[in-house]
């Protein structure tokens, strides 16, 4: 021990003497006695520009951090002599892991391509004597620091962490992220300079603990004060591995500094060198960075997922309230749907409402009342629908479904509102003007698109691949009318031929018959038989007419003769003569005068007209 002091004194002397000559000094410095579990600093300092520091190997100690390199330079002018000094310090933070006496071998450093070795250190590790000891020992270190005039702020005096309560949540399940600060030395003005970004999450900051919630925590044998800076409730929006990156924090750590003010007065020294007056604080600004976190988000089960499920996860109740069920046209009604519960309630942004098409409905007014506490987000989300019935009648508002994933039951739950029946009476007619469409007629609104219904009447089934077209029946039905056509045609023609034969025969015979009749009449004329004579003449004339022009006898009369002959294209002159003859024949029967003469004349006339027609038709 005394040797150590001597050595360090020697080195101190050497430092003084050799520094003037720019002698390279490389030395290790640490407490000689530490307790098990105590954290302490081991510093190597060199008074020149040093490179290639190679630390020793430690046995019995754990390296917590290090080596850190720090550099300082100073220019001094003393009595006109200016000197410049550079100091490099390599710092380890070590922790004694077990009891015993351990030697720390020398470290090496390169200055101007020359290697220098430090002294080796022997450190005695004694049994821990409790928490108070550690603070006192820290007092020692600070005292040691004071000797060198440097405040040694250990990097683990203050650190920050991000902690989640559940790193394996379901999609949509809320997790609570806490920003924690751990500190051994007093700190002030902690401010988050860069908060974490929560990509893939919907975040809600818990507002109710504005003041820091502090408590003590023992970490590896050291008591830390822990403060929860911020709590954030996070709802994962997608499944998979999601990263929460570190946040950064700036704070001021306050280190005690004890300056011994020597006044020479023992009273004053005693008075001011107590802890009350003598302690001053060095404020050290620190920038800290937390750890990053990986959250493994499990997807929600796909099986039995309701159609209207829109991502609500938690535990909810669903209530609806319709303000009236009896209204008049254009008199609005109000439907209030409230979802109350715990979970990602603010993410529920719409409900699957289906109002009758004759109702005019607007986007709902959404109000929420969200409370966030240390154990999640709860509250209510209210959807207020304003519905205006435009037509009178009885309408049904279908039940509104609301589905969510129940975390405690681990399954989907669908809640539905009751079905409401709204009776709309016709309001006063003037109100119709409010309606946007022209009164009376409006376009048909297509609400959906689906296939038409099946044909349910008896179906006429047929064998696959059979067609009427090309079938035997088809050809039969095609040929049959043609056959019928020809048969009818042929039969008709035959009949027609036969009929025309009769006409022709009559035509040919007409003259003969007439001559026969006339001959008979001539005999009667000679016999002076008046009555039969006129009958024969008359019959000869009429018969001739009938046969010659194939006019049925029954159709012939004095009136129709003219037209009948006209139709047969007989000359007008002949027709007149023929009618004259007929007239004469009728007249002559009853005419006064010489009977024989008149008979003779009638006979001649009849003969003449027949001869003339014969000639004419030839």
């Amino acid at each position: 021990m005394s040797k150590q002091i001597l050595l360090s004194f020697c080195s101190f002397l050497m430092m003084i003497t050799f520094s003037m000559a720019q002698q390279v000094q490389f030395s290790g410095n640490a407490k000689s006695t530490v307790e098990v579990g105590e954290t302490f600093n081991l510093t190597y300092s060199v008074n020149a520009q040093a490179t290639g520091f190679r630390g020793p190997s430690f046995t019995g100690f754990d390296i917590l951090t290090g080596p850190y390199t720090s550099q300082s330079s100073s220019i001094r002018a003393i009595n006109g002599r200016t000197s410049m000094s550079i100091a490099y310090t390599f710092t380890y933070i070590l922790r004694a892991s077990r009891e015993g006496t351990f030697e720390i071998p020398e470290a090496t450093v390169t200055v101007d391509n020359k290697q220098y070795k430090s002294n080796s250190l022997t450190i005695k590790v004694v049994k821990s004597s409790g928490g108070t000891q550690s603070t006192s020992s820290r007092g020692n270190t600070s005292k040691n620091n004071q000797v060198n005039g440097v405040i040694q702020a250990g990097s683990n005096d203050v650190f920050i962490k991000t902690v989640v309560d559940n790193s394996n949540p379901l999609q949509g399940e809320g997790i609570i992220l806490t920003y924690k600060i751990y500190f051994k030395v007093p700190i002030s003005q902690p401010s988050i300079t860069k908060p974490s970004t929560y990509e893939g999450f919907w975040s809600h900051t818990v507002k109710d603990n504005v003041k820091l919630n502090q408590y003590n925590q023992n970490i590896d044998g050291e008591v830390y004060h822990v403060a929860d800076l911020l709590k954030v409730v996070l709802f994962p929006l997608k499944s998979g591995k999601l990263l929460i990156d570190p946040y950064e924090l700036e704070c001021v750590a306050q280190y005690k500094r004890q300056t011994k003010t020597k006044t020479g007065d023992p009273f004053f020294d005693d008075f001011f060198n107590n802890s009350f007056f003598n302690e001053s604080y060095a404020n050290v600004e620190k920038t800290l960075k937390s750890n990053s976190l990986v959250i493994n988000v499990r997807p929600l089960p796909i099986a039995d997922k309701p159609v209207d499920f829109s991502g609500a996860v938690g535990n909810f109740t669903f209530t609806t309230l319709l303000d009236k069920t009896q209204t008049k046209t254009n008199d609005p009604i109000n439907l209030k749907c409230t979802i109350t519960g715990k979970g990602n309630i603010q993410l529920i942004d719409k409900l699957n409402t289906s109002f009758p098409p004759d109702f005019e409905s607007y986007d709902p007014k959404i109000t929420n009342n969200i409370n966030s506490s240390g154990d999640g987000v709860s509250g209510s989300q209210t959807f207020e629908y304003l519905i205006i019935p435009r037509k009178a009648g009885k309408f049904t508002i279908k039940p509104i479904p609301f589905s969510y994933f129940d975390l405690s039951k681990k399954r989907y739950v669908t809640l539905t509102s009751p079905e409401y029946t709204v009776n709309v009476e016709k309001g006063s007619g003037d109100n119709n003007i409010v309606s946007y469409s022209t009164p009376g007629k409006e376009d048909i609104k297509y609400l959906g698109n689906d296939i038409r219904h099946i044909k349910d009447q008896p179906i006429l089934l047929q064998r696959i691949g059979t067609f009427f077209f090309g079938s035997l029946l088809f050809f039969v039905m095609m040929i049959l009318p043609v056959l019928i056509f020809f048969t009818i045609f042929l039969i008709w023609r035959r009949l027609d031929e036969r009929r025309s034969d009769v006409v022709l025969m009559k035509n040919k015979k007409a003259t003969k018959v007439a001559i026969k009749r006339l001959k008979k009449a001539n005999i009667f004329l000679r016999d002076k038989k008046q009555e039969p004579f006129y009958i024969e003449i008359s019959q000869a004339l009429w018969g001739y007419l009938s046969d010659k022009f194939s006019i049925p006898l029954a159709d012939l009369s004095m009136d129709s003769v003219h037209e009948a002959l006209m139709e047969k294209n007989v000359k007008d002159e002949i027709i007149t003569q023929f009618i004259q003859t007929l007239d004469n024949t009728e007249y002559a029967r009853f005419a006064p005068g010489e009977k024989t003469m008149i008979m003779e004349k009638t006979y001649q006339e009849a003969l003449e007209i027949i001869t003339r027609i014969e000639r004419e038709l030839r």
Partner: protein
Amino acid sequence: MKKVLIVILILLPVLTFAIDPQITVAKANKAYTAGFYDNAVELYKSVIAEGYESVELYYNLGNACYKQNDFASAILFYEKAHKLDPGNEDVNFNLRIANTKITDKIEPIPELFYKRWYRTLLESYSVDKWAKIGLVFLCIGLISGLLYLISRRLLIRKAGFWLGICFISASLFTFLFAWQDYNNVVHRKEAIIFSPTVTIKSSPDEKSVDLFVLHEGAKVELIDNIGTWYEIRIANGSVGWLSASAIEKI
């Protein structure tokens, strides 16, 4: 009386045979209306398996497939119904709806206007309807011809002559339409893609170049056939080869 009995006795087995599928169809319709679509599909298919078909049968079967979200089958059966009766409005409507549900949207090549008119005219009636219309026209034409030949009245003869010419030529046209429709139905091969995705190749070879991809429910026209490969053409005119296993013929 005896004769009637004999006729009934002869017809009886035929009638019972004919009634059986009708009952099945009625059952299937009931199942469909009740919402048991899979049951309905089975029943309809059993009727087809017995060798019967009709526009309504295919239409109902297509509907049942549609309700089960089996759009490829729905389209197949609607197309079959459409083939039997191209002018059936319900069939065409549902076919249109079903076609909106499939992945592929194929823009057909615009046809020349007279071709389109002709096709619309052809498709306005089924083969048998055209045939029947033709027969009626033929009869009217022949009666008019008879009037022309027999009548002695000039007016009737004139009317008969022109009407006869008109109706007989009209009947010839309708027979032509029927024949063309018939050819379309019997000889023109079309198919529906049934595998979820199928890559159309440039030649009937698995290693050949991939041309394009079709999905379930797309309609293709079969042009050629080599082994298990079909050369197909889609409505936009693209041609390629695919394996027979990917399609179902209409």
